[in-house]
């Protein structure tokens, strides 16, 4: 059974269909990529999954349970965490406290503050931010702020992690580090669903790729299938 499933997921903004009748699934332990030109509806689909928006009509199931219409904090507590395209760290709070909030309020309801602090410290080590634990999040570089968002999301102990353009704006070294981080997250047993524009990254990391265009799913398959698909090439490069 897939860990995440969407049936006929649709969302209009006024007259514009941002996401139109999209069926999708993500299986346990996979890394699934979501690509498409700008304005294709990728982030909207993530907002629909994480509860920031409600599909109308359509249904989203997580581990077989219908989560359509659930609030963002409820979906987080069920085990779906996310990062944001434009980083949303708690800018004036120290790095450690950013992550601590995830441990304290995520899927586990009554975690002691000592355990939470230990978890947060371990996660900072996992993403490579240990040295910066005491500085305010706003003073980090973009790459580090993105890592911090990942650490905060992981602190909620998710089973599914939604990564929204983790590698956008990073230099080649940072992209390589981010790719390695995604693999390590999967090795922890966390399923990853990621939006990405960096083709090299998505082709080498993902098990499967979905392509959105004008809110519709136009292709799906392994990286090889997507790279050679006529429709995908047409969408990206024109005929």
């Amino acid at each position: 059974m897939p860990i995440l499933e969407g049936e006929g997921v649709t969302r209009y903004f006024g007259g514009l269909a941002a996401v139109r009748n999209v069926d999708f699934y993500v299986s346990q332990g996979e890394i699934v990529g979501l690509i498409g030109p700008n304005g294709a509806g990728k982030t909207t689909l993530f907002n629909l999954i994480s509860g920031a928006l409600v599909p109308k009509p359509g249904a989203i199931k997580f581990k077989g349970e219908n989560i359509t219409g659930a609030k963002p904090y409820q979906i987080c507590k069920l085990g779906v965490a996310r990062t944001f395209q434009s980083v949303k760290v708690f800018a004036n709070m120290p790095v450690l406290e950013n992550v601590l909030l995830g441990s304290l309020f995520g899927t586990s309801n009554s975690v002691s503050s000592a355990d939470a602090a230990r978890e947060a410290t371990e996660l900072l080590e996992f993403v490579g931010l240990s040295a910066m634990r005491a500085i305010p999040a706003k003073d980090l570089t973009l790459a580090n702020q993105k890592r911090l968002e990942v650490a905060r999301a992981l602190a909620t102990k998710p089973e599914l992690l939604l990564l929204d353009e983790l590698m956008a704006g990073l230099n080649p070294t940072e992209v390589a580090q981010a790719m390695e981080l995604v693999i390590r997250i999967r090795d922890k047993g966390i399923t990853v669903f990621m939006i990405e524009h960096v083709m090299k990254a998505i082709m080498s990391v993902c098990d499967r790729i979905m392509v959105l265009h004008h809110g519709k799913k136009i292709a799906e398959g392994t990286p090889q299938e997507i790279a050679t698909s006529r429709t995908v090439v047409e969408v990206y490069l024109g005929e």
Partner: protein
Amino acid sequence: MNTTRVDLKKVWVPALLLIILLLLAALPYARPGYTVVLVYTILMYIVLTVSWVIFSAPTGYISLAPAAFFGIGIYTSAILGMALPLPVVICIGGLASSCLALLVGALTLRLRGIYFTIFTLGLVELIKQFVLWYEIKFSGTRGRFLIPVGNNTIYYVMFAILVALLLTTYFIRRSKYGLALQSIGEDEEAAAHTGINVTLLKVITFAISAVFIGAAGAIWAIRLTYIDPYIAFDLNNSFMPVLMAIFGGMGQLYGPILGAAVFSYLREVLITRFPYYYMLLIGIILLVTILYLPNGLVGLIQKWHKRALGGQHANT
């Protein structure tokens, strides 16, 4: 060296607090009369300011509703004051205010920024006009009288409210909910996606802050002895906590306390010394604060502290 300083701080701060609280508790015996009135007025403003800070400082939702909560407390006292014993009246005043806060919060805390602020401002006016209409239409009166009690009683009730408030504030700030409130102010969307029930947390904190403002209003009513809707729902009681918190600086818990104490003392002194110019002087003080002390008195103290430490290092 660093550790010794932390240890010293651990002993110093509670000891200092204890001494101040003991002095305050003993004050009516040592200096009865005007001093008691002056000090409980200051305590009242500290209660308003710290209550306002609990909710508005971390979340960044600037509320102008304190006058509404304060007025509800005042009217609770005016209506029930003769029928029930004083402590019960004070508690009901606080509860009535927090009920209003729960209702208003549930309806309006989805508004952000300036819209929330303007709504709370309108709320004060709305309730004032409603009470005025009700009193004239159904009670056949415009104002109400209250049975006075001794100044010392008012003092000790206000003191007890302040102690309860400070304990509450301390525990909220230390708990994970204090951290969560701060994260709402930083980025509400990210907070929600981190598993925080932002709506519930905001509404409950708003209601907790209203409890103490309502209780303070209930005891303040007795000091006023005569009240009408214009006195009870005076918008100054909404603006004062904001000004005092800015004056003190909001980063630390002692900032708003210091700000409210110094500011309300200044106000008393200026009113008695310069009855005609005092508003002008208050205005100038505020302008100077905002221009030169953007972080309030706390910012100034921290600057001095840093300079003193720097000097020490230079000597050694």
